[in-house]
């Protein structure tokens, strides 16, 4: 990939006059723009298709069909909806704080898509590999809560403000168990970089090295992380910020047209993000049978594994959403502080003890070989 790019750049320098004299950072900037655009297209595609998938799955779970008119089995429904939203009137309430109201959806969008830059799609397929990758993911997604808070407050609607307050309380709280569960995975992998974490999960069959198999505590930590991630993503059963039966639509009550779509695209992009991060942290990322970071086909198979695992999580998330009722605010907090946080602590300490006793050998390897 890099070689191909270098050749392309060389070709461009040769053909385009004056480009040869341009400083290096021009190329750097161009490369970043291209990578960013590619990532954005990929993420939008995933988010859009997820919106269709979710509606189809929801339909079938409710004995309905779901969208099936636009294209084969309604596959292009999301494009139709996107186009429709583009043409819809974009209402800004008179009582709104206009600059903040307009800014909020973009913040949400940026926060969600920023995290996509460091996802380890495969061994050599990624936009960036930061050595604080997982911290970056946590940090950049906190923009989402700011966007929600901003949008909810700026729309000048009390229901919106309610949603925003609930959302921020929820996300700030659930960052704690999520962080602790992530720390468990970090302790097992010994790195903050997502690529390194995935590489550390290599093991027999490509499966047994996964973090959830390395220690029983990691398995629990995985569930803790997953629940906390669902809560941070404002999905049912933690969808209090936009609880439609209580708060009309929560923080996006006043949004319409394209801005509304930004909120929702971010939500659907978040589904894949939750799946991807969970996969990376606990389920071995692109590790899997036949995945090999050194050959190109091994890399492609790895990408397939990663995509498959993430999509499985997307399905589980949708499945949960269309089954469960919603928690109440105090129950939400009780669940976080009384259940998830202590359990996450136990997992972290337990994993460390486990590692000091058994080393970071795989759980199943341990069972088979004995200590």
């Amino acid at each position, binding site marked *: 990939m890099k070689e191909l790019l270098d050749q392309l750049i060389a070709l461009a320098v040769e053909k385009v006059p004056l480009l040869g004299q341009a400083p290096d950072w021009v190329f750097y900037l161009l490369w970043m723009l291209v990578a960013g655009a590619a990532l954005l297209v990929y993420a939008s595609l995933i988010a859009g298709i997820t919106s269709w998938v979710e509606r189809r799955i929801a339909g079938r779970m409710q004995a309905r069909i779901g969208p099936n008119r636009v294209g084969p089995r309604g596959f292009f429904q999301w494009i139709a909806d996107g186009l429709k939203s583009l043409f819809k009137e974009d209402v800004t309430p008179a009582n709104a704080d206009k600059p903040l109201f307009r800014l909020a959806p973009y913040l949400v969008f940026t926060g969600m898509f920023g995290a996509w830059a460091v996802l380890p799609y495969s061994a050599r397929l990624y936009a960036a590999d930061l050595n604080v990758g997982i911290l970056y993911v946590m940090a950049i997604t906190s923009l989402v809560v700011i966007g929600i808070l901003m949008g909810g407050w700026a729309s000048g609607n009390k229901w919106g403000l309610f949603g925003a307050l609930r959302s921020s309380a929820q996300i700030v709280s659930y960052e704690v168990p999520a962080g602790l569960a992530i720390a468990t995975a970090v302790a097992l992998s010994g790195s903050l970089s997502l690529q390194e974490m995935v590489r550390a999960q290599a093991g027999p069959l490509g499966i047994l090295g996964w973090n959830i198999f390395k220690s029983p505590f990691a398995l629990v930590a995985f569930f803790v992380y997953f629940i906390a991630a669902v809560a941070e993503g404002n999905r049912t059963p933690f969808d209090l910020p936009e609880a439609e039966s209580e708060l009309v639509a929560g923080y996006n009550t006043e949004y319409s047209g394209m801005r509304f779509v930004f909120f929702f695209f971010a939500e659907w992009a978040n589904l894949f993000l939750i799946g991807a991060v969970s996969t990376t942290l606990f389920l071995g990322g692109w590790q899997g049978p036949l995945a090999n970071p050194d050959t190109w086909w091994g890399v492609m198979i790895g990408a397939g594994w990663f995509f498959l695992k993430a999509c499985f999580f997307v399905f589980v998330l949708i499945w*949960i959403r269309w089954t469960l009722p919603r928690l109440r605010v105090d129950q939400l907090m009780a669940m976080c502080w009384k259940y998830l946080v202590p359990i996450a602590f136990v997992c972290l300490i337990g994993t460390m003890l486990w590692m000091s006793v058994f080393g970071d050998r795989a759980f199943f390897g341990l069972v088979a070989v004995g200590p």
Partner: protein
Amino acid sequence: MNYFRNIWEAISSIAQGMAVTLRQFFTKPETVQYPEVDVLNPRMPGYSGHLKPVSERFRGFLTVDTTVCISCNQCAHVCPVDCILVESEKGPKTTVNSLRPDGKESPKTRYPVQFDIHLGRCMYCGLCTEVCPTGCIHFTREFRGAAGEYHKLIHHFISPEEAERVRKLAAEEAAKPKPEKPVATKVEAEKE
């Protein structure tokens, strides 16, 4: 102990619920794809769910067989929303075949010159069909009634020409000192 019981209950009950939705996920949907599935066909070809087609007794739009209507006005009287308007002229006396199962014949001396049913007002209660002595007003299974303009919801069951013809007939009838049978049979024949 309660603490762990709570966790266990939460996990098991959520798993149970998710099993139910998953089973539904792999079951065929029940939705009727309405314009594609012919719901008036008893077998509803193309549909795989469990719902029934529009039944025989379905209370769709009202329709009137004006040839058997004896203009007794009972339907208009019983109608709770006054959606039926009947005006009639006195004409030659005949007997008509009623649509009722007993096939009872009713004497007919009045002929409707206007029979309007306002389907925008009608609440499809069926009281009019029950009081009708001849069964001329009855339900159809038709339910597709979208209209672009409001006045199109008022169904006129007698055309102006027909009303004009009946009026003429009634005027002739009124001019005569005594009604004669042959005229009436001619009317019947024409109508058929």
